[in-house]
């Protein structure tokens, strides 16, 4: 039997999970939760590229999710764009903004980069909160229907709203995972991982560190933006919380919880942190407490993340 590459194994596992889990759903509500996991998984896959591959931190990526989300609310209304095109526009705006902001910011390292990205995220959420005339302020704004479900219905594929978003987000996640896995083993991905390993050595082999960092930043911003768009389109509503500080922190936590170095780990982390509040609905006040605790515990005891630690243990037992 030919050896399964990490890439095909990851895609296979994801595809099977997406296709098979609905058979175990006790109610239609779980399609919603599933879709949310996939969207979070998509945003976190972007963080994997930035943090897991390239070793750069961002505490402001929710800002790009906010741009993606509000693009779907505003572009159809003001520019008459179809929501699907609004999503593309949002991604483009996020990419351009990431490029412009990233150029100066990514010269910074460690704490300084963390604070600069955090400041960027807060600025975005401040604008979304304060420009009431445009964004509706803290109360949020309505988002038009994507309309793809109706098209599918005409073609004879009749899905409930929950089912449609579950499979749609699942497919987008698969696509995002495929792209991230392509990148991993490509020359650009290698350059990203090289700069994570040693910036000095990267320079001596000719890697333009500033340039590849910027590439990772822009790519991950597009992931966050598309995830933000999907949330907005699915809920047909969006509030500035999507761009908030806590959302940025959640993204990073999901990535490191699952294992920032691998796409499957990221989705795993997104799954756990998305399910946790659902499981704790009775204990909603504990959410922040638990989130903070998870962040600290993972970084102290499982620095490479949950999934790699589990895999290592399994492998250790097998030998």
């Amino acid at each position, binding site marked *: 039997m030919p050896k399964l590459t990490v890439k095909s194994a990851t895609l296979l596992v994801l595809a099977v999970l997406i296709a098979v889990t609905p058979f175990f759903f006790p109610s239609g509500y779980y399609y919603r939760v599933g879709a949310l996991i996939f969207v979070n998984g998509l945003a976190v896959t972007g963080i994997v590229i930035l*943090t897991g591959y390239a*070793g750069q*931190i961002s*505490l402001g990526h929710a800002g790009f999710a906010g741009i993606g989300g509000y693009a779907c609310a505003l572009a159809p209304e003001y520019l008459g764009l179809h929501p699907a095109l609004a999503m593309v526009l949002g991604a483009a705006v996020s990419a351009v903004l990431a490029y412009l902001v990233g150029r*100066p*910011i990514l*010269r*910074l*390292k*460690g*704490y*300084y980069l*963390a*604070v*600069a990205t*955090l*400041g*960027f995220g*807060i*600025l975005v959420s*401040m604008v979304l909160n*304060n420009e009431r005339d445009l964004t509706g302020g803290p109360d949020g704004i309505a988002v038009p229907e994507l309309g793809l479900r109706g098209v599918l219905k005409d073609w004879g594929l009749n899905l409930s709203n929950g089912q449609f978003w579950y499979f749609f987000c699942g497919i987008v996640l698969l696509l995002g995972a495929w792209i991230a896995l392509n990148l991993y083993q490509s020359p650009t991905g290698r350059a990203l991982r090289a700069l994570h390993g040693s910036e*000095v050595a990267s320079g001596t082999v000719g890697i333009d560190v500033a340039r590849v960092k910027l590439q990772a930043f822009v790519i991950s911003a597009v992931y966050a933006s598309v995830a933000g768009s999907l949330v907005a389109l699915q809920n047909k509503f969006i509030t500035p919380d999507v761009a908030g*500080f*806590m959302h940025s*922190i959640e993204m*990073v*936590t999901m990535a*490191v919880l699952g294992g920032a170095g691998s796409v499957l780990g990221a989705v795993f982390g997104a799954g756990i942190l998305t399910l946790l509040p659902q499981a704790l609905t009775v204990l909603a*006040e*504990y*959410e*922040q*407490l*638990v*989130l*903070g*605790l*998870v*962040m*600290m515990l*993972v*970084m*102290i005891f499982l*620095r490479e993340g949950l999934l790699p630690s589990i895999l290592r243990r399994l492998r250790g037992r097998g030998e």
Partner: protein
Amino acid sequence: MSEFLQFLFSGLTVGAVYALVALGFTIIYNASDVVNFAQGEFVMLGGMITWFSHAAGLPLPLAALVAIIATAALGVAINKLAIGPARGAPVVSLIIITIGASVFLQGAAQLVFDKQIHSFPAFSGDTPLRFGGATIQPQSLWVIGGALVVFVGLWLFFTRTLLGRAVLATSNNRLAAQLVGINTNFVMTLSFALSAGIGALAGVLATPITLTAYNVGIGFALKGFAGAMLGGMGNPKGALAGGFLIGLIEALTAGYLSSTYKEAAAFVVILLVLFFMPQGLFGRRSTERV
């Protein structure tokens, strides 16, 4: 002119709080090279614990003392339980740990206290004092005075006492400090206690003016960090000056430009400082060794 003076007063008041937070950052940064993003939570805890103890019947000065001591103890606990075990971890891990501590403390404050906005009476009444056509709250003088007293106290501690010098030695070279017999673990404990205590004091002094709630910490942390960075990371004089400057910039932005975006002023300053003079006003440029 009186308008400008008014903005100046309010800028100096919030600036004093930021300066105290920046000093807290500086102490921990110097002792451990860690930027403690939970620094703002100490300010929140100072305010919240004082309010809670005062509401429970303690006289205000005693309530404030309880808050400062409890927060200092929490600072030590964070060092022992979360930052200490991750010594030598990559910066990204340390950032996530201290942010985690910050989120955790916010979550805990929500549970132990509540989600309301709180305050307690000003120390010397609410009758505004008049200066050249502008007014200033007596509490503002407490805050500004507090920042200056803490700064002088720290300066004396670090330059005049053996213990203070031990802390400085540790910050210069941890290994060498250990070799000459300094208990660097104790120095770390002390730094976190001091830093958390100063943060709590800032919360105690500022709450009658700025009010407090479980989620005010992150704002203080960011502006304190902006102040510390503006002054030059690791430099106490810079932290003091930087904190006051951030406060002034914020107040003048609110007064002359836009009160909605006064919060943005601090971040714009952070970004500008980072881009154009990453070593800050009083910092030194360093060369990375390979």
